[in-house]
């Protein structure tokens, strides 16, 4: 009898059930999409924040001071120490290598321009988009990943070529454009493009690392290394000195992607190096990230509230419309409990169906949001499914409870006479 009551109610009142069902489905869909977006937004924004460039710099441990003014390196080339280019692929072997988006070595060399060797400018050797091998794995790294704001008019040079990029201001001063040949330190090189960075590189020549090493006469030399890594916002543990930690704490510190622990690991794999966070980028990243994450969390709460209200409003309306039915059941001698049980059974059925469909729809929606805004998938944790379903059932129950109570308490006589 109970099953038949529920079944018939669904069969005969398709319109009302559809309305309530649509409300539950939409509510669950919106909640799912918002929770999925909010849980993944930190990851997505932290990737977007990488457009601010490298957040770690590695320099030789025994290096002399930088003597750079206005983009011109005044340090004599014999001065200072160098890192070894052959050590760089080892970065792929660190614990947090998945978090390292890319790295670019830099080697500034002072060169003379023109056939007569006039005019001193800095030539910066680096990787553009270089394929390196670590173990069996190939990967690509270079300034096109770590310095996304560098724009080239013309073409990026090949990393193994002798071509160079000319900084925008320097190109204007020399009257050169992409495709020209120019003599650098006596040998001719092709200018494959004009580089605009909005920084001191606008007054420099940027060349493949191999070419810079050749000009300096030091194969394998690297002056600095910029590393762009996905990090976790700094907290009290991050700021502690690893030397003062006990073994257990150290493991936790080491296995968290703090900018400090990644710097520590870079020092481990690159011999005689000193790695440090670039505070301008690393410090601000955390604040921006936590602001955006906090905002999304609060908005998700608002979304949950709105969908819970929508679901309960729809359920309340659906039940309120059926007072006469309740009156009939009560007049036929049904107690409040069986009547309420019928309604609750209907509500949970609606919640389950709406929950499953809504979850699927919400997952699709989240994926679409991720694709159109961040060009990447938004992961939906499978563990979200039972949670969402449970929330759907609870909200539907809570939304119905008040209406059911009122319907059951209503005098059957009035209800049957159609007076309300």
């Amino acid at each position, binding site marked *: 009898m109970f099953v038949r009551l529920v079944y018939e109610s669904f069969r005969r009142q398709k319109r009302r059930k559809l309305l309530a069902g649509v409300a539950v489905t939409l509510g669950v869909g919106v909640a799912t999409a918002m929770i999925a977006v909010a849980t993944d937004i930190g990851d997505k924004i932290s990737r977007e924040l990488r457009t601010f460039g490298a957040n770690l710099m590695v320099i030789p441990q025994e290096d002399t001071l930088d003597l750079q003014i206005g983009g011109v390196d005044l340090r004599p080339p014999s001065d200072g120490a160098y890192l070894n280019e052959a050590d760089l692929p080892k970065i792929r072997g660190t614990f947090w290598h998945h978090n390292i988006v890319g790295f670019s070595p830099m080697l500034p060399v002072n060169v003379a321009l023109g056939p007569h060797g006039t005019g001193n400018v800095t030539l910066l050797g680096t990787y553009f988009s270089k394929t390196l091998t670590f173990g069996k794995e190939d990967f690509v790294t270079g300034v096109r990943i770590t310095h996304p704001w560098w724009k080239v008019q013309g073409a990026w040079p090949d990393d193994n070529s002798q071509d160079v990029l000319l900084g925008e201001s320097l190109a204007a001063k020399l009257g050169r454009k992409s495709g020209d040949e120019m003599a650098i330190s006596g040998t001719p090189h092709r200018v494959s493009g004009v580089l605009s960075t909005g920084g001191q590189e606008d007054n420099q020549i940027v060349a493949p690392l191999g070419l810079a090493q050749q000009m300096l006469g030091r194969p394998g030399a690297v002056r600095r290394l910029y590393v762009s890594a996905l990090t976790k916002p700094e907290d009290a543990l991050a700021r502690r000195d690893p030397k003062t930690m006990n073994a257990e704490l150290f493991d936790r510190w080491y296995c968290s992607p703090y900018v400090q622990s990644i710097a520590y690991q870079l020092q481990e794999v690159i011999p005689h190096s000193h790695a440090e966070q670039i505070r301008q980028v690393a410090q601000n990243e955390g604040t921006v990230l936590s602001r955006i994450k906090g905002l999304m969390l609060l908005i998700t709460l608002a979304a949950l509230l709105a969908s819970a209200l929508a679901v309960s*409003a729809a359920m309340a309306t659906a039940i309120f419309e059926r007072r006469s039915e309740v009156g009939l059941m009560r007049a036929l001698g049904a107690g409040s409990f069986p009547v309420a049980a019928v309604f609750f059974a209907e509500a949970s059925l609606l919640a389950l169906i709406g929950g499953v469909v809504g979850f699927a729809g919400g997952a699709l929606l989240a994926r679409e949001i991720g694709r159109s805004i961040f060009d990447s998938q938004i992961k939906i944790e499978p563990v979200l499914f039972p949670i969402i379903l449970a929330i759907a059932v609870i909200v539907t129950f809570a939304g119905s409870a008040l209406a059911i109570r009122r319907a059951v308490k209503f005098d059957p006589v009035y209800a049957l006479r159609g007076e309300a």
Partner: protein
Amino acid sequence: MSSRPVSSLAGRRENAAHTSMFLRMLVRAAVLRRGRAASALLAMVVAAAVATAMLNLYVDVEAKLRKEFRNYGANIVMVGKDGQGLPAGTLQLAESILAGRGMAVPFAYIVARTPEGQSVVVSGTDFDQVKKLDRWWAVTAWPATAGEALLGKRAAAVVNQKGEAFDLSFQGRVIHLTPAGQLETGAAEDSRVYVSMGDFQSWTGVPPSTIEIAASGSGEEVTALAQKLAQAVPSAEVRPVRQIMEGEARVLGKTRSTLLAAAVLIILTSALCVLSTLMGWVFDRRRDFAIMKALGASERLISSFFAAEAAALGAVGAVFGFVIGIGVAAWIGRANFHAPVEARFGVLPVILLGSMAVAVLSAALPMSLLRRVEPAMILRGE
């Protein structure tokens, strides 16, 4: 005496315009069914509040985040062409062009020598301004008096191993400096010694070669400002710091899009909440509908009556919701950005019209169903 009120009442009834009856029906409907009206109004208020909060946040979040992004420091750099110093008065000129919408900080650079013959870059600047511009500088103690210097972490190891006062020489002139604190940035600043602009000028006489400017505003505004500065000081190279500006534009754009998507979803859901509540409210009144129809009211009159009722509900809900929504947005601003989100009254008409439209639409749907039913059927309770 007693007949006068009656006759006047009858007279009033005859002469009264239809509007007074219309208004009375509207008010009585709300008063007599307090419970249902209250629940419909509640749905309206919540929906309008949520929509207001979301729209307010959406409009304001850009300003809030731009403020956070200014912590990344300068977004425009002015440098003298070919390594020359900037002409005197450039800083004042730049500040007058900025007109309070940002700050400009001068930097002068030279290479000095330690008594041991080591070279080190020394920079003169305005410490009070730098403190505000470059908030990421980790400084143990800022110099407070003349003759004090801020030592980059790596520079400190070279010029001042013992932590005592030290000498630096530039073109034969020597300055005696006391270390105030250490500076750590992880970038080029670590290899420099910073002194106050006054000390620097009297020691070297070298004018500032760089002015770093943190201008507030959108990307276009900053670019326009950079162009204005370039025109005002032709001997300087003015460049927007693309690293900062592009990163900022990108992160802001993504955040705004996400927020917009969330706002659309949330507003849609709350509109749904209004729809189902109001549909119930109209359905519930099918007997009123039938009686009015049986008494000979035209369908247009009844439709306009229900529409007016819904619109009134929407308008009242929108006003209350707007106030609550502003409060919610302000609270979110305070909780997340430590600054309240400003109330945007431009949002009010949008909310008002939107709420009324949703309400009328929600009433129209059940009306079209009811119109097909004979009044007799409803009155018989079927």
